[in-house]
């Protein structure tokens, strides 16, 4: 159980047997009265949101979630299939749950999958992945500035902004949390 003073942005709680994540949080305390913890919550299964205010004496259920290590195996045309690194059980995961992460899936890369009652509800990719640039306009010769960018495509067609000096065939590192270019790993 959490007590109200444990509440903060990003915390996962269980309300009416469903997992919710706190997306906004405000501490508020009138005069000499009880503290109030105002939360905006998002249902991790359905995506619906709600406002809820807790008092300092309230107790909140911890979402009974388990984190499993899984390899991304393949895309079956509808679902992205992950296999548990320990049990080898396969879990089809929809693109709704993956969100923008679908752009950065690499076969056989190890991910953390958050499970609620045996169902995957969130996939955390490795922070950095490496991808080859398959298409980009050549930059001006000798231009080594890093603050000027141009669009570039990776193998699945996802477009990122890269510095001018990046060429087709270069391998770059991408931050999966932001979806942004981080650095060049290998020159073509």
């Amino acid at each position, binding site marked *: 159980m959490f007590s109200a*003073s444990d509440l903060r942005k990003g915390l996962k709680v269980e309300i009416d047997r469903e997992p919710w994540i706190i997306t906004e949080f*405000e*501490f*508020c*305390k*009138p*005069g*000499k*009265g*009880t*503290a*109030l913890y105002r939360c905006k919550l998002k249902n991790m299964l359905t995506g619906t949101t709600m406002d809820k*205010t807790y*008092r*300092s*004496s309230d107790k909140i259920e911890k979402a009974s979630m388990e984190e499993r290590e899984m390899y991304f195996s393949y895309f079956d045309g509808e679902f992205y299939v992950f296999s548990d690194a320990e049990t080898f059980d396969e879990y089809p995961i929809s693109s709704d749950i993956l969100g923008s992460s679908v752009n950065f899936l690499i076969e056989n890369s190890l991910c953390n999958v958050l499970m609620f009652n045996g169902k995957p509800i969130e996939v955390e990719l490795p922070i950095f992945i490496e991808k080859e640039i398959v298409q980009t306009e050549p930059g001006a010769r000798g231009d080594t500035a890093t603050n000027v960018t141009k669009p570039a495509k990776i193998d699945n067609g996802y477009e990122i902004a890269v510095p001018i000096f990046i060429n087709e065939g270069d391998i770059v590192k991408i931050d999966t949390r932001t979806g942004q270019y981080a650095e060049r790993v290998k020159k073509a």
Partner: protein
Amino acid sequence: MQRESKKPEDLMRLENIASNLKFRSSFLFYLRKFFIKKGFLEIDTPVLIRSPAPEDYINAPPVGGFFLRTSPELHMKRLAAAGFSKFFQLGPCFREGERGKLHNVEFTMLEWYEAGRNYEDLMEFVKEMLQYTIKRTCGKLKITYGKNIIDFEGCWEVITVKEAFLKHAGILPETAIQNNEFEIILTEKVEPNLPRNRPVFLSDYPVSLAALSKVKSTNQNVAERWELYLGGIEIANTYSELTAYNEQKKRFRKAHKNRKLNNLPEYPEDNDFFEAMKYGIPELAGSALGIDRLIMILTDSSEINEVISFTET
């Protein structure tokens, strides 16, 4: 000077709030000047204390067998019993677990007392004090805070808790207390609807929320207590101070009991404070004002950490 590395984020933050810190320094200068002109003594009392005043919802951080003070009130009242009649203090107070846009565990409190005064006298006093300091630091008395302009010159509104609850929530404050929803209604229905274009005194709290204030002589259901609101934000809490020993003993006993019931850390009783009460404290009024929040409003800042140099907590 040749710099080797990029400017650390903390230093950029300080650069951004530098003008607020300068304003704060100038404000505190005129604040002290005002009190001294009015014949007040500045007296510091301990920050590390043995016996915090017991409260249902305020907790003192424990440190090495002592506590950090949540307010200097009990020591200030011992000074009053000893014969000091006009005195103030500016210094840090601490409240465990209180952090947010308007809260920091460590914050700066202005607290002052004057013998022979009541809570209504202090409405006039705080008005004069803010007009004096704001005129000298802001150069004007109409202050922009967010979307509103607070006019410190014109009429300052006084509204009772009962009027405010009936008007904005259609419920009596006593009923709200019984339903355990006083704070929720106050913060969600009353505070957002208080006038923001002028200072507002929310006055005459239900007697069960009297804390250390006196019951009103003309109405036993309410306490002589007000809170000042600026731009919808609570700034200061003021009492005609309770001076009756037995009543004080009774209220503390109840507060100690509530703390025990709620599994909150227990505090040793402040015997010196009660000795002083027994000996006799003259009739007086006192006020506690959150300096950080006041500076926030006067510098049009939306968060408390924009007016504090470093927030470790």
